């Protein structure tokens, strides 16, 4: 079994793509049901976190900028860690992610274990 990071990205810029508080509330159940389903298969390693859209990027020479979320349609909204036999299985498990229903996507990355 390997571990995989699932990164959830969605459009945080376009006005029409933003969810109302009621829509966000309504998304809670599909998210919890999906993560509960992963956990029931003993494939959830960490429930991860949701991320606020506000952020800073620190660059060399004391440069601090907002973002990069303001400039991108693919802002990171959260992440979890799962376990699976292969990256293909991890991708298969990601198909049920509710973010796909609201125009977002899931990026899957294999965690490299520490030696």
């Amino acid at each position, binding site marked *: 079994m390997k571990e995989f990071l699932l990164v959830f990205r969605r459009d945080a810029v376009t006005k029409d793509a933003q969810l109302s508080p009621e829509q966000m509330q309504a998304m809670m*159940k599909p998210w*919890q*049901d999906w*993560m*509960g*389903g992963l*956990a*029931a*298969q*003993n494939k959830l390693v960490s429930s991860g976190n949701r991320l606020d859209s506000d952020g800073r990027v620190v660059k060399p020479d004391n440069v601090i900028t907002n973002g990069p979320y303001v400039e991108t349609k693919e802002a990171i909204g959260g992440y979890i860690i799962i376990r699976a036999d292969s990256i293909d299985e991890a991708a298969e498990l990601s198909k049920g992610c509710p973010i796909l229903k609201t125009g977002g996507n899931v990026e899957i990355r294999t965690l490299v274990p520490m030696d």
Partner: protein
Amino acid sequence: MQEEELIPHLFRTEYRKIISVLCKVFGIEHIEIAEDIVSDTFLLASETWGLKGLPKNPTAWLYTVSKNKALDFIKRNKLFNDKISPELKQTEMISDNIEIDLSNKNINDSQLQMMFAICHPSISTEAQIGLSLNILCGFGGDEIADAFLTNKEATYKRLARAKEKLRTEKVKIEFPSPSEISSRLETVLTTLYLLFSEGYYSSSQNTTLRKDLCVEAMRLNLMLVENEQTNTPAANALLSLMCFHSSRFEARINKNGEIILYEDQNEELWNKELIEKGEYYLNRSSKGSRLSKYHLEAGIAYWHTIKNDTTEKWENILQLYNKLLQLEYSPIAALNRTYALSKANGKEEAITEAEKLNLAGNHLYHSLLGNLYTNVDTIKAIQHLQTALELARTVADKKVISNKIASLKGK
């Protein structure tokens, strides 16, 4: 109460108290001295009371006699004087005026401290449960063997080994320091949780004994919530969970010791007083910021005290299971979550999810699928139940499954 009932009753209620107090005086490494003194006291009680009749206050009699026996022992025993008194003297207790304090407060404190000593991280979980039953609940080796369906000889050996471990690890009978208390309390709660589950889910046919295990776990848990230092949200949540579960004790087993499934239970037999107590402790548990698995399980158990199937009920149960599984995976929680999913989101979704669970070696998995396929695909339902029947180990489980198969075939 008749004398022949009184002594066993007092043994159950008083043995553990005197043992805890004496052990604290002697140190846990001399637990056998405390055990001998208390056993002698009870032996003397049965002889004397039989001849002379009952004393006015039998409990006080036991306290006085055991106290005197302990003091006599201290005075007389050379080994004790040579080896232990110097240690006691260091703690400013001179052998002549050692105080054996059998006041309620000291009895309670000693029992709680004993609980922490037994549930010490260096002692294996299995041994912790055995020792708890033996020392904190006054269960004999025979009863413990019965409860765990093991043979008596093995149980006695296991208890002796566990006591030896307490001795070699030099476990102290004391409250952990404030910085340690929450992590140490976690071990205590786990042991009480397992003790309760042993009674509630045990395959032992001895219903009275099983109920006793549950009652004892609740009694010890109650001591925790009644003490300021151990009255934590998690301890309250665990007690709440035990109250909700035990409220169904009378309804879930029939006269022949067979299990009655939740949906077939007569809710008139649910104990309303225990349900109210469960709600009380659940309220008391809702402090602090840490949500323990006991909170989630107590929440699930709370919703089960409402018999009517409503969308709200099953949606809440499903979400609690979702959270519970994210906190800690267990096959039984995964199966129960899938059942809740069928009630909240429909059978079709639940069947798809059930088939992903990878628990095909578990009879409960096939029982669940048998249940989900009922009224959907009778042939598949029967196939799964037959697999469940082959995998089930206890007579009680087999009986429940064969009844289900028979009712499906009758349709």
